[in-house]
């Protein structure tokens, strides 16, 4: 019979990440104990899911959709612009700790491609100019 205790692990990871922005190392032992798992197993689960991170993110998370519908509407150029503008590669955080740039593979906004998401805010039909405006607004400029 499966261990139902372990079934609370993903919700617990989401709660931690919501609180800290990432899963801190010091939480792993507690998680393992609380869910009746080995620490290595917990680390394995965290590593499997793209959402969970083990290092602090930037103050904001900018996700750019790189999937097909958005590609058909110019997402590659938008992605390139974001990377140049922010001065970071995808997956990295700007030097000032403001923005973490990430790729997304469909945000369910394909009828308003290209799409980006700044934290939990979805934006559609995003031109290069709109992206700059969204980022400026996010920085409180």
């Amino acid at each position: 019979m499966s261990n139902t205790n372990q079934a609370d692990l993903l919700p617990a990871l989401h709660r931690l990440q919501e609180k800290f922005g990432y899963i801190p190392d010091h939480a792993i032992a507690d998680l393992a104990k609380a869910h009746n798992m080995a620490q290595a197993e917990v680390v394995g689960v965290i590593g499997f899911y793209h959402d969970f991170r083990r290092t602090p993110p930037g103050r904001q998370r900018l996700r750019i959709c790189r999937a097909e519908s958005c590609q058909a509407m110019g997402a590659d150029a938008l992605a390139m612009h974001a990377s140049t503008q922010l001065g970071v590669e995808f997956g990295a955080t700007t030097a000032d700790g403001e923005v973490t740039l990430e790729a997304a593979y469909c945000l369910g906004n394909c009828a308003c491609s290209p799409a980006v998401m700044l934290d939990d805010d979805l934006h559609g039909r995003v031109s290069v100019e709109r992206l700059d405006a969204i980022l400026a607004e996010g920085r409180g400029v």
Partner: protein
Amino acid sequence: MTQRIFVPRDASAVSVGAERVCRTIENEARNRGLEVEIVRNGSRGLYWLEPLIEVEIDGQRIAYGPVAPEDVPGLFEAGWLRGGAHALFHGPSEEIPYLKRQTRLTFARMGVTDPLSLEDYRAHGGLKGLERALDMKAEDIVDAVDTGGLRGRGGAGFPTGIKWRTVMNADGGQKYIVCNADEGDSGTFSDRMLMEGDPFCLIEGMIIAGLAVGADTGYIYLRSEYPDAWDVLEDAIVTATREGILGANVLGSGRRFELNLFKGAGAYVCGEETSLLESIEGKRGLVRAKPPLPALEGLFGRPTVVNNVITLASVPWILAHGGEAYKAHGSGRSRGTLPFQLAGNLKRPGLVEVAFGMTLRELLYDFGGGSASGRPIRAVQVGGPLGAYLPESRFDLPLDYEAFAAVGATVGHGGIVAFDDSVDMAKMARYAMEFCAIESCGKCTPCRIGSVRGVELLDSMLAARPQRSNDDTLLRDLCQTMLEGSLCAMGGMTPYPVLSALDHYPEDFGLSPKQEEAST
């Protein structure tokens, strides 16, 4: 009675400004001393017109869109509360051809009602299916779904009645209904729309499934990319519980059904049903070998129905109107309707629910209006990232599971993504391999290693391309290995977009143009 104005709360509509438009309308009405009631509805699915604002006049809804905040004062000036003429005026919503020509069964309430008003839901036919089901024997519920010919809308098209019967006949004890709301396929958004725009419909469908198979507990596995759908569902579950629809005594019947929301964590492969179950159990989302089928040994080892959002949301209509009425729509062995999703480079992207059997060309041009860029449509990907690319010569294919399978393509979850002639199909093939490499669960070699090898091969073909010296033997062999040796459709179908791109657009790969029409 105060006049009602409908402003969608749908995430896509909000992504293009519906929230700001809503605030502007409120302010403008206040400044003008006008009393209006703003209703936050779902989206009608006419996304090129979003934010689409509807003004109710004598019970009829008049559409204006796409409305930007700066258009609002002018709309008041033009007398839109009396249906005044304006450049953004589209007349009565229901008469807009894009909407009028659809057959909205599953999406009948979409954009019409306030998603969180149970009163609205009931007034528009909601709960009729559940009420019927509560008076029926379990076998009869399954028979109705079977008669309707409903097949899984998540991708594989497996007959829902057969799946339910297996779970119904499985040993007693704890059983589960799991709704697959991972909607990972690019080019698709019908699950999101339904959850945000008509959440009670999904809840009703899940309860009916529970009654049919003898399950008293359900889970909705929702992708984390959909925070708005999460909020709406959470709210709807609270309301449904308070109103005695969910809980220990479903509509006073003495039957129990509890519903849990579960958040995914950004893994495409967790849309695969066994990976999804592993994920709910708190594990890495490794795909399980089948057998055992989830229907017999699913969640926590118990008999489990795993169905897509649209599959489950189609059930209340079938129960309310009967299997025969549903079956009356469709073509061949593809019965009923499918909410197609038009996306990519199209003038009029949106949600189009029609009976199976319509051609791709009708959807792309009659509904979609051709490309947004005005250039010729060169390629269309149907059925998500694992679906084949289809060239113009295939546009007259009827949308039907069997007709698509016959040419090595898939209808899948009904996503249709159009590309104009600026597309580089070798790059799209590379992307398909890259996506598989990023999202592979890692359990089997053809998928895990094959996809990485595929990216390398395509990179070298892309680099050599100007000299036209490429040979596709290695790439085709690799695709064959993935097709034959993968445990699930992630590795097993990634070759579809790659091979179809090779077959139909060899010139993009630096191969000599094909001599004859390829076989797939």
